[in-house]
């Protein structure tokens, strides 16, 4: 409290001993210390609002790819978001790789959206980049849209088998979560 008061005194018309001592190193030192101390007190309070360790422990998810058959996909939850994992057919991979970048709304090569040597696996955050709906297309019965990828029922955005937007209103390709292959049949998302 003394510090805030000191500031108030400083802001007001300081006079007499206050004026003299303000310039005094011996008085400045505890004031500087108090500022450091206040910061040190604030940090634990601020940090307590960050994700706690039990939340962080769930921040990564491991997915076993074995049960996914060619041409189909699954949806897993990661940090409260749906993640699409699809096993693409050779034909789908070829289509995704052969498309001209100039035709794309957000040009990006298919090779930049899969892990090297694992082109058959596409892993996407299943949230439409338009307004946050979850596109259809992961279940065999779902409509996949004109480009065989995903179709957003909210406003009709369509994505290809690489998760790139091919038809608006969505402005961007589906985001890729951070993930890595632990082995050929197991990935770790996050």
């Amino acid at each position, binding site marked *: 409290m003394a510090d805030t008061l000191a500031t108030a005194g400083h802001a007001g018309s300081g006079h007499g*001993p206050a004026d003299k*001592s303000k310039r*005094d190193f*011996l*008085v400045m*030192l*505890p004031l500087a*210390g*108090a500022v*450091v*101390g206040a910061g*040190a007190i604030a940090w634990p309070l601020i940090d307590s609002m960050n994700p706690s*360790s*039990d939340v962080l*422990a*769930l921040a990564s998810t491991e997915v076993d790819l074995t049960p996914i058959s060619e041409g189909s996909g699954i949806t897993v939850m990661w940090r409260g978001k749906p993640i699409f994992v699809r096993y693409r057919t050779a034909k789908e991979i070829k289509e995704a790789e052969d498309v001209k970048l100039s035709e794309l709304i957000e040009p990006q090569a298919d090779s930049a959206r899969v892990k090297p040597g694992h082109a058959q696996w596409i892993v996407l955050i299943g949230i439409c980049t338009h307004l946050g709906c979850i596109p259809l297309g992961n279940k065999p019965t779902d409509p996949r849209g004109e480009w065989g990828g995903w179709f957003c029922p909210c406003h009709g955005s369509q994505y290809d088998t690489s998760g790139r937007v091919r038809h608006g209103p969505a402005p961007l390709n589906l985001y890729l979560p951070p993930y890595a292959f632990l082995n050929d049949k197991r990935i770790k998302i996050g």
Partner: protein
Amino acid sequence: MRLRVLAALAFLMAPLGGANAQEAAPLLHSHWSFDGIFGTYDKASAQRGFQIYSQICSACHSMNYMAYRNLAGIGLSPAQIKAVAAAVTVPGGLDDQGKETERPGRPSDTFKAPFPNDKAAEAAMGGALPPDQSLLVAARDGGPNYIYSLMQGYVDPPAGVQVPVGHYYNKYFPGHMIAMPPPLTDNAVTYADGTKATLAQEAHDVATFLTYTSYPQLDEQHSLGVRVLLFLIFMTIVTYIAKRRVWADVH
């Protein structure tokens, strides 16, 4: 608990003294690495204690507030933690048909309890509920020394004392009649690190581990505390100097 209050007001209470009615023997004291301002957990000992917990205690006692990931605090590597967690099977939620599934444990899971609930535990244990061990050290007067003593307190009852069926005589247990059979003996476990497993060593190790499960933040608490105290001592000195300086023209 009353001892705590006493300790807190020791400066006042000392001359008056307290006639304590408890007849339990004075606790054995071990040397604890985590005692004192600079104290930290002896990780090797805590790991041995965890071995005892997994091989012996966990047969009856739950540890609901500990997650496998918390074992990092006693020095287990992520791979070791994963292996420990994967060794148990936990409920995996509902499948597409609405049936309960099971999956191997993950580091984020809490320790698997030996019984589905307290009632089941009580029934299996002849009516005596084995207390959850996450906070056992925090919840007992004497803390680690109590656990250390209790483990070594199984003795023959004094002449004339009848021990009820299903109970054992323990000189450190309040009331002496404890439902828990003696859990530890010499060589009750074979330590992975080759330490000789005497009863006293086992008691010490398991008490260390249980202290960790009660106070997992203790290492951080002590190291941060030392820095905070140093800072505040510094602040006290410079503020006092500043005070002398400001008041110099008054006195």
